[in-house]
């Protein structure tokens, strides 16, 4: 009896440490890679659709941002305790503030490296079906939202910044929501969980590849 309890305590302790380690790794990666300076690139091809839709399309046409959002959705969808609405709320508000606030502060940075690093970390974590506590998951979702918001600031039109931010945040939250709806039936079906984890591993692999290429480019050009 005593041995069983000790074993259970040890297992709980290991799981908690694992939560902390993974969450800390993902969060630290987002912060560290976001602080790497780089070349900011602007593209204004969507301006003719108006600020709102320009914001929407900036997220929906960026593979690295979609990768981060789907990786996050799979990771959240594989957790025992679902906090879907909180994740969607957090990512909506943080991406709105990231784009709007970043635009007001004149934030400019190259997001390719932090986004691909985040994509890699989330992809690996989701592929390994790592269990993460609700608070940590919310923190990761908030960081991803803020990162995606800030990553697109460089392309925001000079006028109607908040309308651009609104479109961007709705597209961000919508993508995660589709991911969460897709993974809603995963817990009960083994084959579905496995296919989502395989998908997450592809996200992780793509993230690693882009991250390595971007790092090499930065190292070459200083």
């Amino acid at each position, binding site marked *: 009896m005593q041995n069983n309890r000790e074993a259970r305590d040890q297992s709980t302790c290991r799981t908690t440490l694992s939560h902390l380690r993974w969450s800390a790794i993902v969060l630290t990666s987002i912060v560290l890679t976001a602080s790497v300076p780089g070349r900011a690139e602007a593209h204004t091809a969507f301006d*003719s659709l108006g600020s709102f839709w320009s914001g929407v399309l900036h997220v929906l046409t960026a593979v690295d941002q979609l990768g981060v959002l789907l990786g996050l959705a799979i990771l959240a969808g594989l957790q025992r305790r679902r906090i879907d609405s909180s994740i969607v709320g957090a990512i909506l508000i943080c991406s709105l503030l990231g784009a709007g606030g970043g635009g007001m502060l004149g934030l400019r940075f190259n997001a390719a490296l932090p986004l691909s690093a985040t994509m890699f970390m989330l992809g690996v974590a989701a592929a390994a079906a790592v269990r993460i506590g609700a608070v940590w998951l919310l923190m990761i979702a908030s960081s991803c939202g803020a990162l995606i918001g800030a990553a697109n600031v460089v392309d925001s039109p000079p006028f*109607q910044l*908040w309308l651009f931010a609104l479109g961007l945040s709705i*597209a961000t939250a919508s993508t995660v929501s*589709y991911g969460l709806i897709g993974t809603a039936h995963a817990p009960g079906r083994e084959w579905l969980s496995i296919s989502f984890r395989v998908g997450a591993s592809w996200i992780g692999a793509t993230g690693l590849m882009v991250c390595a290429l971007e790092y090499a480019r930065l190292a070459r050009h200083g």
Partner: protein
Amino acid sequence: MRLYVLLVCLATAVAGGAAHAHLASDSYLRIELGEDGKLSGQWDIALRDLDAAVGLHPEPDGQVTWGMLKSRRDAIEAYAMSRLSIAGCAPQPDELLVDYHAGIGYAVLRFKAACTAAFGLIRLKYNLLFDLDPSHRGLLTLVTPSGEQSDVLSPEHSEVNIGRSPGTTTDEIARFVGFGVDHILVGYDHLLFVAVLMIVAPFRRADGVNWLPLDRFGTVLIEVLKILTAFTIAHTVTLSLGVLGIVDIPSRIVDPAVAITIMLAAVDNVRPILPNIRWNVAFGFGLVHGLAFATALGPMRLPPLGLMLALGGFNVGVEFGQLALALLLISIVFVVQRDRVYLQLLVPALSATAFLFASFWFSQRLGH
């Protein structure tokens, strides 16, 4: 309650920059080319667009008098002609008139030219307002001895060959589909109406008062499709009647009515005042929105076949635009629908924000 007020204030502040419903900016360019190489054209440019480009110095209430327009004639003609180049021809301004399309004032520039370039090799480049408003579109009608064709000019497609055999019908339809999409995407009042309907789309009114969540995402998608299809059918009916000139209601009545539809739908989200079946509501209000869309195609004066293609393409484009917004919002609403906070706090807060915007537009449009 405090949180509710805070949310309304926050949402209003965030979207404050968009408080003016962006009215689509279109100009209508009709060019007729004779076999003798003589070219005549008419260009209808909205007075509000000209004011933004050259400054018409309107009255404080926004009115532009004929005297003001006449005093700025040289500037208007110089600006417009610098934004239209027709290779092989040198268009010269002829007359300046005024016309109204759905109650909106347009300056009508007539011009003439004698073309030296060979028929079929005359290239037209349109560049009006693209630097000020990338969502501006030029609706071109070309009348040549070989027939009549229409085109939608945008920053991405600003050049056409006059007199060359017209593009295929598919190309023409595709351009009007694109025009429909563009038109709805910058028509924030129409989009807000769709968004207000989407706020409660994953629910049904079981007892006529309270919202009950729908369980399956597929069911919600079918409901959304029903609502949007009813809306599209309704606005197709009134749009067609408006473009054909059977119904002609000025925009000073239609535009405030569009704002009222948003206000009513927003109130209905919180307190039932409309029929319980949502697609009935969408159909009824779609009739009003269709009259507002009619301003887009009416002044093109297309022949019956061209008009049919333009109308069909335009309607499909509008449907695509609405569907894009609905698909964007519905997943978010479906995920959060089971959270009590959504029904108790967010539905009233979002509906109240939409109501505030619509009432602002209503008062603004009533003033005009």
